[in-house]
């Protein structure tokens, strides 16, 4: 996948400003940056949920931004999307939610009467088993915890049979334990299926721990592209546009850093 000069303007505000990069081989890419840096818009443009203002996204020689109708929906199926708020259908049971990943390609009658084939059911159950939530298959999606719902969303993404997975802040609404399970699942999918995973993250240590490559964005512009090990304190300052050093352990949501960052009580209260 090659992204060239991708730009998105909302009125006078430019959310994504002339971003270019390419992903040549299956990678786990973390996109980091401040809130409003354009991370979500970037992912939503790749999936065609948000129209781009300018630029192109070349995949196997085709500019996916020019696709329309069935071809566009086919592309949306190829790049599965995972959302911060899971975006499942709350009143439907888990296994149906997962099977909805197969909707693309279903005809009118098949959709109308909710006809899912034996093969599709087995696929959905296999995906749920892989994510360790097959026991909840018949519960309504809304009754599950956030971490479980996000795993259902990943299972749905898997049944889409995608070429890549785009995850928009997949762990931002989750507790640390669920966040770890979800990130490990995404990493496992990347490694076992050799699939590209592009993941918006808001904590640096998650990007360091799980990603092969980190892209940093600031005010819509791409300001960093490299290995996690190249994320020096000064690079981090550039990405977040911060004046001073950022202490990663205080923003971290990872379990192991919790011990390190336990609040240190100062003996003397700081005078106001």
């Amino acid at each position, binding site marked *: 996948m090659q992204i060239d000069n991708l730009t998105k303007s909302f009125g006078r505000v430019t959310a994504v400003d002339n971003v270019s990069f390419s992903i040549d081989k299956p990678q786990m890419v973390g996109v980091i940056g401040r809130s409003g840096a354009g991370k979500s818009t970037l992912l939503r443009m790749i*999936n065609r*949920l948000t129209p781009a203002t300018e630029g192109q996204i070349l995949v196997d020689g085709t500019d996916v931004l020019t696709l329309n109708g069935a071809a566009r*929906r*086919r*592309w*949306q*199926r*190829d790049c*599965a*999307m995972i*959302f911060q*708020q*899971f*975006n*499942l*259908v*709350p*009143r*439907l*049971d888990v296994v149906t939610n997962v099977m*909805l*990943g197969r*909707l*693309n390609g*279903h005809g*009118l009658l098949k*959709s*109308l009467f*909710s006809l899912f084939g034996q093969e599709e059911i087995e696929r959905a159950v296999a995906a749920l088993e892989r994510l360790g939530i097959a026991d909840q298959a*018949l*519960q*309504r999606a809304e*009754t599950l915890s956030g971490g479980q719902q996000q795993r259902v*969303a990943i299972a*749905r993404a898997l049944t*889409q049979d995608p070429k890549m997975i785009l995850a928009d802040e997949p762990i931002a609404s989750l507790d640390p334990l669920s966040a770890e399970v979800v990130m490990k699942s995404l990493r496992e999918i990347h490694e076992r299926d050799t699939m590209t995973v592009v993941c918006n993250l808001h904590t640096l240590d998650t990007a360091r721990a799980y990603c092969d490559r980190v892209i940093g964005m600031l005010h819509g512009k791409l300001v960093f592209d490299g290995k996690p090990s190249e994320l020096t304190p000064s690079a981090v300052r550039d990405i977040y546009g911060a004046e001073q050093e950022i202490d990663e352990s205080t923003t971290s949501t990872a379990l192991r850093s919790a011990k390190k960052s336990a609040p240190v009580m100062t003996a003397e209260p700081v005078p106001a």
Partner: protein
Amino acid sequence: MAVATDLHADLNSMERRRKLYSAVVLIAVISVIFSGYGQANSMNSGGFLDGLIKFFDYPSEIVIEAWEEKLGLPALFWKFLPAMLETLNIAAVATILGGVCALIFAFLGTANLGVWPPLVPIARRVMDIMRAFPELIIALFLIFVLGTSPVPAMIAVAFHTTGALGKQFSEVNDNLDRKAVEGLQACGANWFQRMRYGVIPQVLPNYLSYFMLRFEINVRASAILGFVGAGGIGTELRRTIGWGQGAGDETFALFILLILTIFLIDQASSYMRARITESDRST
């Protein structure tokens, strides 16, 4: 400190304004009621208070006659059952027909569901117009054109139902969780599939209760249309009420049938709704 006193003053004046508005509305309502009463009283042939004394004369007459003929009542129920079924039939067909049209209009009339935007206000205005016509007016017109039969009543009720239910359905759609629809869009589902799986499962329970309530309203509306020649229980009621004295037992039997029918629909509606919400809780 100055900010705090300003805020206090603002809040106080806001509170005074609210009280003033309430007082104005209250006075307006009271004066409308009294002037309306005066107006109606001067236009009627007899005064309202004179009529009020005789208000219970006719109902008590009906009950007395029914009591005298109480052994004949079961036979009367049996006699009027076909008429009741005809009314029920008109109402059911009209509600289903109108409900299907309402469903289409509701989806076209909801913003942000991915419908071609100029279509949304058009669909809404069409629903307004359909709702504006009372069933009785449409039925009178259609009976004039098509002759006396249940068909004009059915069309008239279905027409009004489309407007009324469509409005309620599209309001249910407005309160929708759009994240589910977006999730399906990102999977490559087409518009129809997004509506079928992203919207319908969420709105169905509320659709069902509005539908059943509308069915109940339509039974009553269909009964009234019998008065203008659309058949069913209304035609019988018109006959027995028109006869005045002597037909009290028949009028009584007809009312009881109508009330029982409404009870039954209400019970069925609560039962169905309970079934749906129960399966929510059991999981």
